[in-house]
């Protein structure tokens, strides 16, 4: 099972646009949107949701106002500054938990002399299985301000793998998150190929180096692609040389192309249009060692046909 994870280090380099194009070119893949914090891939792949699941992760403390005696033991013990004064009454203050700060450790629950604190599981978001014109897609949405431990990412990948095995699809293509923290780690560990999409800027170079340290740390074969390369050709070369020195392969370059935004507005992948950068994207795909599995361009008519066949 081939699993390609597309990440970027820095946000905004174009990784989601590229991932959508790869999904179209692959033809027989399962798509996973692991950028659960700011999931955008569905805006290009028009998924039709067939399964919807709530996502619970960890617990959150909840103080019962009536039962609270205002002793403040919870406030002294909480290391995350999550206990706040809820209000005042005759006997003194009563306390409440700020759900944005609570990390669900359970210390206050254990220590409360009145046993006034409940500890329910926390609903953090949702994940979905859908059908798209490129194949099955697993995606998710993290709730506002929810903790992004990587568990939801792990869930998305697990389901994508399950579907790939069930439907005998040989490949998973995952859109990963920006950064180098939990969610990124959760998206790349265990994959057999990571592609980092970067841009020819000092920020792009800086963040690329950080993310290459990460993939080296986890020993995952990594390739690099500079998007919008012609905005700064010198920087592009510098980045490519640096990537090679860091042990990554260079998968190619994609030119700056306003048609990418147009494709996005039309809810299509770049390779489904005549955009000049489509040629570059196909080359990157080939350089990654991939074959094109689908028909060259999915026209809107063919797209409608495919979606209709699911009904």
């Amino acid at each position, binding site marked *: 099972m081939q699993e390609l994870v597309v990440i*970027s*280090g*820095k*946000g*905004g*380099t174009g990784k*989601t646009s590229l991932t959508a194009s790869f999904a179209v070119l692959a033809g027989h893949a399962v798509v996973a949107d692991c950028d659960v*914090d*700011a999931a*955008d891939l569905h*805006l290009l792949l028009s998924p039709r949701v067939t399964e919807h699941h709530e996502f619970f992760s*960890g*617990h959150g403390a909840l103080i019962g106002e009536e039962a609270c005696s205002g002793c403040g033991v919870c406030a002294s*013990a909480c*290391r*995350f500054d999550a206990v706040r004064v809820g209000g005042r009454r005759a006997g003194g203050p009563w306390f409440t938990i700020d759900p*944005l*700060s609570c*990390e*669900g*450790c*359970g*210390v206050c629950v*254990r*220590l409360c002399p009145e046993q006034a604190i409940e500890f329910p599981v926390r609903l953090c978001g949702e994940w979905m299985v859908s059908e798209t014109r490129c194949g099955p897609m697993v995606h998710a949405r*993290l709730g*506002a*301000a*929810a*903790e*992004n*431990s*990587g568990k939801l990412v792990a869930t998305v990948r697990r389901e994508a793998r399950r579907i790939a095995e069930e439907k005998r699809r040989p490949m998973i293509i995952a859109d990963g*998150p*920006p*950064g*180098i*923290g*939990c969610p990124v*780690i959760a998206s790349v560990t265990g994959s057999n190929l990571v592609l980092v999409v970067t*841009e*020819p*800027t*000092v*920020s*792009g170079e*800086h*963040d690329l180096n*950080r993310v290459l*340290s*990460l993939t080296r*740390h986890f020993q995952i074969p990594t390739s690099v692609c500079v998007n919008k390369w012609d*905005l*700064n050709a010198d*920087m592009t070369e510098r980045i490519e040389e640096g990537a090679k020195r860091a042990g990554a392969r260079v998968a190619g370059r994609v030119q700056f192309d*306003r048609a990418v*935004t147009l494709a*996005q*507005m039309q*809810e299509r992948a770049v390779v489904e249009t005549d955009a000049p950068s489509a040629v570059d994207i196909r080359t990157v795909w080939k350089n990654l060692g991939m074959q094109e599995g689908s028909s060259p361009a999915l026209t809107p008519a063919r797209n409608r046909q495919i979606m209709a066949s699911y009904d």
Partner: protein
Amino acid sequence: MILAIASGKGGTGKTTVSVNLARALGCEIQLLDCDVEQPNAHLFLQGKPLGSEPVTVSIPLVDESLCDGCCECGMFCQYHAIVCLGAKPFLFAEMCHGCGGCALVCPKQAIGETERRIGVVETLRAQNVTLVQGRLDVGVATAPPLIRAVKARIQGGTPVILDAPPGTSCPVVATIRGSDFVALVTEPTAFGLHDFRLAVGTVREAGIPFGVIVNRMGAGDDRVHAYCQGEGIPVLLEIPDDRRIAETYSRGHLVVDVLPEYGGLFRGLWDEITQRVERPA
């Protein structure tokens, strides 16, 4: 005033706004780069390093001579950081949230604490700007403790700009908490609007007044403006889709240095926000 610059989607121009705003204001200002996974502000603010300190979090330390293997600690831990696998507890330091619960529940008081390094906080001085940034060690999973360490360095008396990481989850919340105003940066595209709406959800959860900066005006359409109008969200600033800005940025230069005509735009943004904070609607 503490102003946070955030966004749902990455790459919309948060850092561009933060560093240029700090420079354009000209007065003493603190800029805190809270994107500890990928701190970029220093690339634009060629600062003189003033100091660097490691940041640690507490993790448990089991005194095996006192431990009787009862495993109360392992049963309490919500994070699988301390687990019962045999006679004695086993520690996975990277999973630990530092809650202190295992030490509290141990009937033999056999658990103390030690420190585990997660990153550094660095301070730099670039003309009028004191830049404080956090840099998370590669392989460390969680950002918020380091973000809190960066924010702990806020000095009273000078205005503060917080450059947030992208997204809407815990690192962003850790950054924007306690700020007086959040300026959300977005772009007028489908991805921009989608992620902007998620960011609005987070900022509303945090209960902080906010407005929007629309970057790359002209690169998309008017969907973001229409949404803001419908939601009553003030548009604080529009930055044109000027290729010169992209090129300046790519070289690591400040827009307000290379294209001074933009200085007024950023100063106007500051005035607009200050007014809103001083006289909330």
